[in-house]
């Protein structure tokens, strides 16, 4: 039963991602991107990472896609969609390298299956304390420094974006 759900969600995510690439207009690819992010969120739920699924919907499908849609609507992109350019050699080489990369990844995934290590976060622990409680205990003790560094990075990103996009007079 789980397998059926995984296959449906993974297939929809792959199809939506392909449509992101093949859509003619940038706006349509952004909307297909939202579908792809939602499917990835469902895959997170199937992997018992509900908190990440909510974050995926709020941060990616909400905040980042709103950024991108704003940018698309601010820029007038209609002109360059009509231009057709011949396929470059570098792109063909890139695609060949990509096929090789795909083969390598599949071979690695087939050779070394996932070896289960029994770590500290068992299902009993999660059921006793709740998933978000366990997560936040770790986040604010073991991962406190990366958490603070991430907040500094976000502040720097916002300040940098404002400074870059400010119109100099």
């Amino acid at each position: 039963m789980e397998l059926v759900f995984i296959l449906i969600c993974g297939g929809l995510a792959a199809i939506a991602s392909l449509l992101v690439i093949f859509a003619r207009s940038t706006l349509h690819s952004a909307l297909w991107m939202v579908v792809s992010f939602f499917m990835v969120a469902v895959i997170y739920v199937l992997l018992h990472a509900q908190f990440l699924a909510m974050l995926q919907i709020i941060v990616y499908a909400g905040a980042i896609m709103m950024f991108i849609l704003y940018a698309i609507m601010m820029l007038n992109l209609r002109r360059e969609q009509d231009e057709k350019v011949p396929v470059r050699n570098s792109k063909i080489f890139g695609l060949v390298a990509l096929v090789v990369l795909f083969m390598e990844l599949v071979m690695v995934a087939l050779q070394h299956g996932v070896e289960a290590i029994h770590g500290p976060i068992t299902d009993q622990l999660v059921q006793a304390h709740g998933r978000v409680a366990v997560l936040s205990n770790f986040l604010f003790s073991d991962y406190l420094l990366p958490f603070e560094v991430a907040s500094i990075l976000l502040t720097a990103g916002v300040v940098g974006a404002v400074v870059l996009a400010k119109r100099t007079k």
Partner: protein
Amino acid sequence: MIDNQSVYLAISIILFVIGAAGAICRRNAIVVFMCIEIMLAGVSIAFVTFSRANQSLDGIFMVLFVMAVAAAEAAVGLAIFVLMYRKHGSIDLDKFNLMKW
């Protein structure tokens, strides 16, 4: 019988390769940016899969920080696209050669 975990890994590989193909083939900077986000999503699925297999939370925290970096990257990257559009009148990546040697 196929293991569920290998199916998750297969989805992760497929998403990563689709994203990489788009990043190579498309010339529109915003579409390339979205393809990079697809690649990040594929890697995140692999992280969460291994995190669940190993009964650990490390992979989930890795995805959390990937999201934080992606948000900062989106802010700065889109500001750069707006600047480039003001300067060149398009966001075609083939026309950006400021840093080309």
